[in-house]
């Protein structure tokens, strides 16, 4: 089991996940990346439940990349769970969505998403967006300093 995760990628679309991981790898940002495929698995990891029971929760992800539309539990529900728990509410969450959807961006911001990104359709643009996003959250942004 991976214990120290810097980027938690929550994505049910296999090709989007592959492209995301690929772009982050190219920038050297994917060393501590964990990919889970739905919202329920994301919560299991975040709260050390289910398959992740016993995980050391003191090491928190530097950023959670969260797809909006997913089976079981969608991204907005996952975001709400993260933001309402004292132990997880300060973890940065970036919402990712495909351009075909039109969810309420304003609502996501009001619920405390750190930033909201529409995945570009075109391959090069997609790679570029993920690279910028990875660099921004892993390097430019100051992380919460956990005890």
């Amino acid at each position, binding site marked *: 089991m991976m214990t120290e995760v810097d980027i938690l990628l929550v994505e049910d679309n296999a090709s989007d996940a592959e492209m995301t991981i690929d772009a982050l790898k190219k920038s050297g940002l994917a060393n501590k990346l964990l990919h889970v495929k739905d919202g329920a698995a994301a919560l299991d990891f975040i709260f050390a439940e289910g398959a992740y029971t016993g995980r050391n929760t003191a090491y928190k992800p530097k950023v959670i990349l969260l797809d909006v539309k997913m089976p079981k539990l969608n991204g907005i529900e996952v975001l709400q769970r993260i933001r309402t728990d004292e132990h997880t509410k300060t973890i940065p969450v970036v919402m990712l969505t495909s351009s075909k959807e039109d969810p309420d961006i304003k609502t996501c*911001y009001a619920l405390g998403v750190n930033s909201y990104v529409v995945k570009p359709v075109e391959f090069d643009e997609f790679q570029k967006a993920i690279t910028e*996003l990875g660099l921004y959250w892993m390097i430019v942004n100051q992380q919460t300093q956990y005890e």
Partner: protein
Amino acid sequence: MTPIHILLVEDNEGDILLTREAFKEAKILIKLSVVRDGEEAVNFLTKQGEYLLAEVPDLLLLDINLPKKNGHEVLQFIKGDEGLKHIPVIILSTSSSPKDVNMAYSHYVNCFITKPLDVNDFIGVIASIENFWISIVRLPANKENK
């Protein structure tokens, strides 16, 4: 195209000038409004006093050490207000102390950037804010002025 409206809350004239210059290089038209203390920031956002006609910004750049009301107080005000809490707030401060960083996140800051002391690094940071927040991120639409 509607310009992106950024409210800069900053009392250091040098930093205001540098931020203005850096945004001039932006690929997208940016309207930069500037207020110089925390109380003015709240007045701007709530359209009080001289800010009666102020437009709600798309994004806030907020310093921490400010006269009258500090950045933490302004942040708390915004994120506790139903009509304002959707506005992304970027703390831009010389501080990198865990106390400031953690407090900002616990008040739902969108991100926390430490201001570099070197001028070129400062311009670089503004460029990366522009790159990420303007080119990649989808900002919430403030229906009122769109």
